[in-house]
C-alpha cells in the first residue's frame, strides 16, 4: 500500500513537471508580448526592451524554463506582471471559492446524474426513460454559458429566488453549481443507465432473485454497488472537465475563483499567473485520478493496488 502510494506520487510529480514544460513552450510561442501589455500602447520601444530585460524575457528559452522550475521547487510560483502580488497569494485567496464551487457541482451532478441514470435503467424503453434520455442529451449538448444565462434569467431575474451574482451565502452557490454540474449530470446519467442495465443482466442478479430477495434489496445491495464501479474512475477524470467549465461559469456569475483569475490573466498575457493556474488545475486533475484509484480497491475487492 505505502509502496504503491509512493510510486504513484512519484509518477504524479513527473507528470506535473511534464505539464510545466508543455505549458511553458506554448506560452513562449504565443505571439503576444507581455512586456508590451505591461508598458502600454504608447510606450517606446526602449521602455518595452527594458521591461523585457527586467523580466528576463530576452534570455534563451531553456534558461527561462530552468529559472521557473527551480523557483517552483522552492515553492515560488513567481510574481504577477500586472497585479502587484505573488502568484501563490493570488491563487491562495481565490482557490477556496473555486473548491467550494467544484464540490457543490460534483454533488449536484452525481445527485442528478446517478438518480436519472438509475430511474431510466429501471424504466428501460418506457416513456420515462425516453424523456430522461432526451434531457440528458440536451444537457450534454447545451453550452455552459447558455445554461448559465438562462438559469440567471429565470431564477434570479424573473423569479428572484437566487442572487444574480457574487459570493458569500449558500444561495450564491446554487446557480453556478447547477450550471457547472449540468453537463456532468448528462454524462453520468447516460453512463449510470448503461451500467445498471449491464449489471441487471448479470448472473448474480438472477441468483439474488432465486434467493427470494425483494426488488428493493436486489437493487440496493446487488445492482447499485456493482453499477457504480465504472463511475468512480470517471469522477477522477471529471475534475479536468470542471477546470475548463469553471472559467466560463465564474465569468458568467462573477464568482471570485481561479477561473476568473485565469480569464483575466489570459487576456493580458500575465504569464506567471497563467502558469500558476495551469499548475493548480493540473495538480487537481492528477490528485483526482490518484484519489479515484485509491478509492476503487476499497469498493471493489477484486482490484488490488500494485
Amino acid at each position, binding site marked *: 500500500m505505502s*509502496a504503491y502510494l*509512493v*510510486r504513484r506520487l512519484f509518477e504524479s510529480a513527473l507528470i506535473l513537471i511534464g505539464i510545466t514544460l508543455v505549458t511553458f513552450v506554448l506560452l513562449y510561442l504565443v505571439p503576444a508580448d507581455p512586456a508590451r501589455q505591461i508598458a502600454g500602447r504608447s510606450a517606446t520601444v526602449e521602455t518595452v526592451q527594458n521591461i523585457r530585460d527586467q523580466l528576463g524575457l530576452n534570455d534563451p528559452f531553456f534558461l527561462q524554463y530552468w529559472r521557473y522550475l527551480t523557483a517552483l521547487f522552492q515553492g515560488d510560483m513567481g510574481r504577477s506582471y500586472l497585479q502587484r502580488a505573488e502568484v501563490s497569494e493570488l491563487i491562495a485567496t481565490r482557490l477556496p471559492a473555486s473548491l467550494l464551487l467544484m464540490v457543490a457541482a460534483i454533488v449536484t451532478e452525481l445527485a442528478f446524474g446517478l438518480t436519472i441514470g438509475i430511474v431510466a435503467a429501471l424504466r428501460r424503453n418506457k416513456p420515462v426513460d425516453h424523456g430522461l434520455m432526451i434531457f440528458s442529451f440536451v444537457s450534454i449538448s447545451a453550452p455552459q454559458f447558455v445554461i448559465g444565462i438562462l438559469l440567471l434569467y429565470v431564477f434570479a431575474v424573473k423569479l428572484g429566488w437566487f442572487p444574480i451574482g457574487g459570493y458569500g451565502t449558500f444561495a450564491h452557490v446554487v446557480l453556478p453549481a447547477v450550471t457547472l454540474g449540468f453537463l456532468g449530470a448528462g454524462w453520468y446519467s447516460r453512463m449510470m443507465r448503461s451500467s445498471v442495465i449491464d449489471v441487471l443482466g*448479470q*448472473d*448474480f442478479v*438472477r*441468483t*439474488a*432473485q*432465486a*434467493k*427470494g*430477495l*425483494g*426488488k428493493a*434489496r436486489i437493487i440496493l*445491495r*446487488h445492482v447499485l*454497488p*456493482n453499477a457504480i464501479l465504472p463511475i468512480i474512475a470517471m469522477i477522477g477524470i471529471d475534475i479536468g472537465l470542471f477546470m475548463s467549465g469553471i472559467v466560463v461559469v465564474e465569468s458568467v456569475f462573477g464568482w471570485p475563483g481561479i477561473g476568473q483569475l485565469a480569464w483575466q490573466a489570459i487576456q493580458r498575457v500575465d504569464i506567471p499567473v497563467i502558469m500558476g493556474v495551469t499548475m493548480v488545475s493540473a495538480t487537481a486533475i492528477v490528485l483526482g485520478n490518484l484519489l479515484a484509484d485509491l478509492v476503487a480497491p476499497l*469498493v*471493489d*475487492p*477484486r482490484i488490488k493496488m*500494485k
Partner: protein
Amino acid sequence: MNQPVLTVRDLSVQVATPSGAKMVLEGLSFDLRAGETLCLAGESGSGKSMTALAIMGLLPKPMCRIAGGSVKLGETELVGLSDAGYRQIRTARVAMIFQEPMTSLNPLMTVQQQLSETLLEHGACTRAEAPGRALQLLRDVQLTEPDRRLKQYPHELSGGMRQRVMIAIALACDPEVLIADEPTTALDVTVQAEILDLIRDLQRDHGTAVLMITHDMGVVAEMADRVVILRHGCEVESAPVRDLFAAPQSAYAQELLAAVPRLGSAPPRPAKPQGPTVLKVDDLTVRFDVTGGLLNRVTARVHAVEGVSFDIRAGETLALVGESGCGKSTIGKALLGLVPWQGSVLVNGRQTRGMGPARLKPVRRDIQMVFQDPGASLDSRMTVGDQVAEPLLIHGLASGSELTDRTEHLFRRVGLSPDMMARYPHEFSGGQRQRINIARALSLSPKLIVADESVSALDVSVQAQVLGLLQEIQDEDGLAFLFISHDMAVIEQVADQVMVMRLGQVVEEGARDAVLRDPRHAYTRRLLSAVPVPDPTQLRHERIETESLGSPIWPAGQGPEKLHLNAVAPDHRVAV
C-alpha cells in the same frame, strides 16, 4: 409411492420474437417425488432451462411467459403466483443452482454476506445466529477451511468452490426441491465428480427432490432415477433411467444415446504410414510475469508451460488433455506466436524462434487454429464467404474468380452449400458455424490444425458430425492435428498420441491405448475415473477425493521441479 412434491402438468412457455410468439416449451408434464432425482435431458434449444426458470418464476420478462399449464408445489399452485408469493417460495421451498459458478455470485459481497442474506430473508435464523449457520452450511457442502472462506470474496475461490457456495445458499432453508441447471458443465471433470457426489450426499441426508437439467448423458446415467428427454420444447420420451439406456423407445433417444462418446469403446486407430514430422517442439516454456512493488519489478511468474517437448507427424493426431489452467491452450497459442515463448518450435523443419510478425506470416500458413466458441470466432458483420476467403487474400494466394472458386470448394469440402456464402454468421447453427471455421482454417492448406476445444460447445449429435468431418479431412489430406480438449471420451475417439498435462508439465504421454487404457500416473487415473459413464448399470465406484492441484504461480527466481519422463513401454512415458 409417496406424494409428489412437484407436479408439472401441460406446462407451455411462449417467447416473443420479432416474427410473433413462439412456443419454446409445449405441454410438458412430470412428477417429482421426495428423495428422487429427475433429469431433464436434451440438446440446446430443447426448452430444458426454460422449464427450470418457469418453475422458479424467473422467466425473463417481458419476452417470455407461461402460456398454459400448471406447476404445483405440494398444494401450492405456482403458475400465476404474485411476485410476493414467489419470493416466499424461492430458496425456501424451491432452490436453484446455475451453470456458471464464476458469475453467479455477487463479486462485491463476502461468502458470509451472501449466505446470511438468504437465511435472514426467509427468517431461518436471527441475525446473531447467521454467522454460525453460514459456517455450518459451508461445512455441509464440504468446503475446505470453512472459517476462512466465510470472509472471502467470490474471486478468491475456484469454480468448484463457488459452486459449493451456490449449493450452500440453495440449501440454506432446506428446500423441498433443488433445481440444478447444468451445475457441472462449466467445471473440470474431477471437480464435476466431486460436485455430483456432494449433491447426491446432500439429497440422501435431506430427502430433497432434485430436478437436474443437463445435456450430458454421462451425468444423466450417474444421477437420475428417471429421465425426461426433451427436443424442440416437447417431451420425446420419459422413462426410468435404466430402461432408457437399456432400450430407448423413441428414435430421437436412440440417436442421442448412439452419438454419446463412450470412454473405452472407441475403435482402434488405423495404422498409418510414418509421415514426415510436421511440427517439432522442444523444451517449450511460456511464463507470464506478475509485477509489483515500488519499481514495478517482476515479483512472481505464472509458469503456464514448462519445458514441454513433442512432435507431430503428417496424418497424425496428438491430443493434449488436462484440466483448466494446465497450460494446454497456451501451447496452441504459443505455436502461432500469440504469446511470447522460449524453447524451440520447428514447423516443417523451419525454426520459428525469434521470428517477427512479418517472417512468421508464411509459417502461419502451415498452422491454423479452430477455436472453442464457433459463434465468437466469426465476425458477425462479414459474410461467411468473405471470412473463409480472407486468409487467401491476406496471403495473396488467390483473387477474382479463382478466389470464388476456391471458397466454393472449401464450402463443399466441409459439407456446406456454396449458396450459403453470402449469408452472415447469425443465420447458421452452432455446428454449421464450426464447419465455417474449419473451412476458414483449411483455406490456406495448412499442414497442422490446432483444434482448441473445437467441439466442446456443440451438442453431442453435432459434435459427432464435426469429429467425423475432421477425421475425413485428415484421411484425405494427411493433415496433422493438435487436438486440445478436456473431454477424455472425445480424445479417445480422435487421438493417435495422447499427452496428459498438469500445471504446465507433461505427466504422461504415449500412444492412445497405452495412456488411456493402461494409465500409469496417478493424475491420469484420477482424470479417467472421474469421467461419468453413460451407462446406469456401471456406476463409478470410487469416489473422487478432493485434491488441491497446486498453483502454477511461483515467486521470481523459483519454479516447479522439473518432471522427468521415464519410458514404461516403447511408446509410453510417465513422469516419476
